């Protein structure tokens, strides 16, 4: 079990920079998510932590020890590959015992260990089978078995559910989370699925184009995104952006555009020009006496709630409202926003403007 600290980690492949100066901390026992779109450098980051890739610059601390130039075999961590990478010439039992053999553990003891792990994962009945014919789920379990049998300091998992079908993913992700809670081992988990990250992670780091955009607990990242990218990437439907030109100054508690004034959290910075008001769909209130109006272009019924899509003077906007609320396509409806949840962004930099509401979250990351 270990704490992992990443400091200014960077990786260049020739002229191309895959990871640009990343820094974050993974606490002991955390289930930590590396989240981002395809090609953003998640796998590269994970491989640098594991020692499969040498960083161009920066440091990796595992349990207080700087390991960035150490070999993978000396770091005492386990890695679960996306395609599982089970040794095809060995059976299940041999696959799981492989890491123990390298440590020179006596055969009898290996047998006991493997049996233990097989029991935890519920794969006792397939121990003597070749890995070739296993189902996706069983392969996944064997890969996990090979990882946990050694009781390493930490687990690295690169989209371990990516090869499974949607229905089974759900089931496996719960199994994984339960397993983690049982063992309490530090786990770094790569995914491009924001929902998976939100559901499973204790903490999330959001990456884009090789840079860390934000890092924190899921709730903070959802409520107080540090950048427009994070706001857009997380949540479904994602955060609404109302584009406008205007000015905000330190101390402002309201903002006006299109002749309307909206209450916002007290601002702690000054900005002007192209700005964006970000508001989550569930914080949009359909209220007929409001002067700011939008035309309903679509509704999507989801049972207890519905998603109402509106055309406003500042762009398309989606509202999540109770299903009982009447909204017909073609109607023009008044809109109001819950002022405590609003984040302003500077459109040119894409970064959130500091306010009293998001200061706590943005300052630490």
């Amino acid at each position, binding site marked *: 079990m270990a704490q992992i600290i990443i400091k200014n980690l960077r990786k260049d492949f020739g002229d191309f920079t895959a990871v640009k100066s990343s820094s974050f901390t993974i606490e002991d026992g955390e289930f930590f998510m590396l989240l981002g779109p395809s090609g953003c450098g998640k796998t590269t980051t994970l491989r640098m932590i*594991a*020692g*499969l890739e040498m960083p161009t610059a920066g440091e990796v601390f595992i349990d207080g020890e700087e390991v960035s130039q150490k*070999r*993978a*075999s000396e770091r005492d*961590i*386990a*890695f679960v*590959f996306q*395609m599982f*990478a089970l*040794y*095809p*010439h060995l059976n299940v039992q041999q696959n799981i015992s*492989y*890491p123990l053999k*390298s*440590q020179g553990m006596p055969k009898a003891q290996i047998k006991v260990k493997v049996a233990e792990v097989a029991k935890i994962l519920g794969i006792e009945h397939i121990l003597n089978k070749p890995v*070739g014919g296993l189902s996706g789920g069983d392969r996944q379990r064997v890969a996990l078995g*090979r990882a946990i049998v*050694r009781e390493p300091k930490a687990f690295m998992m690169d989209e371990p559910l990516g090869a499974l079908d949607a229905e089974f993913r759900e089931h496996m992700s719960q199994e994984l989370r339960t397993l983690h809670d049982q063992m309490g081992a530090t786990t770094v988990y790569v995914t491009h699925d924001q929902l998976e990250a939100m559901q499973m992670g204790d903490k999330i780091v959001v990456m884009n184009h090789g840079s860390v955009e934000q890092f924190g607990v899921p709730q903070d990242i959802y409520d107080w995104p540090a950048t427009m990218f994070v706001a857009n990437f997380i949540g479904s439907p994602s955060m609404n952006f109302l584009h406008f030109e205007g000015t905000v100054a330190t101390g402002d508690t309201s903002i006006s555009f299109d002749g309307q004034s909206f209450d916002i959290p007290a601002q702690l910075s000054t900005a002007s020009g192209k700005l964006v008001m970000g508001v989550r769909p569930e914080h949009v209130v359909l209220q007929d006496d409001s002067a700011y109006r939008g035309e309903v272009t679509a509704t999507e019924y989801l049972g207890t709630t519905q998603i109402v899509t509106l055309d406003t003077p500042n762009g398309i906007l989606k509202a999540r409202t109770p299903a009982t609320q009447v909204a017909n396509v073609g109607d023009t409806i008044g809109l109001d926003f819950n002022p405590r949840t609003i984040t302003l962004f500077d459109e040119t930099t894409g970064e959130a403007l500091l306010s009293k509401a998001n200061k706590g979250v943005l300052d630490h990351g």
Partner: protein
Amino acid sequence: MSGFSVTEPSKRQKWIAGILVITYAVVTLMPLLWIIATGFKSPEDSISYPPKVIFQPTLEGYVNLFTTQTRITPNMKDTLAEPDSWYEQIVRDKNMVIAGPSRYGQRFLNSVIIGFGSTFLSIFLGTLAAYAFSRFKVPIKDDLLFFILSTRMMPPIAVAIPIFLMYRQLGLSDTHLGMILLYTAVNLSLSVWLLKGFIDEIPLEYEEAALIDGYTRFQAFYKVVLPQAATGIASTAIFCLIFAWNEYAFAVLLTSGEAQTAPPFIPTIIGVGGQDWPAVAAGATIFLIPVMIFTIFLRKHLLRGITFGAVRK
């Protein structure tokens, strides 16, 4: 639907396919069968016209192959004791006695040493080189690979004279080592290229998993990559062995005694006491056996490997 399937051939199709395959096999195996049969014929039967398909089998050819013989006069024959073995009997019936073993056994052994030695060396060096080319960042990799391939672009015999002169200077003429090195050099480009293809197909993750599991790079290569490259190694080894085993031109040029292989030796049997075709055929038959055994031994791998990974799982 009555027995119609896209993937499963019908009974009639199977019959037609079977007949075609058997016909083809008979046509290609005919010369081989003829050689094997000739080995068991008497010299008269072997050159009789029309050719004899039914004949009285004899081991005379094999005895002639493995022995040298001297003619004796009838008077002398009477003074000799009765032959005490079946092969002496065969020889005695022709008014000859066995003077000693022939050189065939030793030539055959040379072929084994040189053929398998060079195959082993080609595979050993080829696997290491192919692994390095497949996995590591080698400077001017593409140029090196092209260079290695280019050694195959001319017939090897084109450089026979320079090699002959060079070998004489170095004292490698007519030595096992010289022939092993020569065949290895010729085979290496083939083995590097074939093996690189096979190793390229083994996902890197397996080795990385082994590295993570606490193995060194060499152990990962040895314990994870090699077993999975077995198919490729086996089929490459067969190609290398077949070349080295059958090679004739260099063997004629560079070997004459000590290290002479079987291919240049077998035709010389004809000269020993008339046209002894059964002995030549017997020599050729025995010569076929090692490659056949080797191929059968690796058959399982070969069938999968020879598709060059096209349908490898």
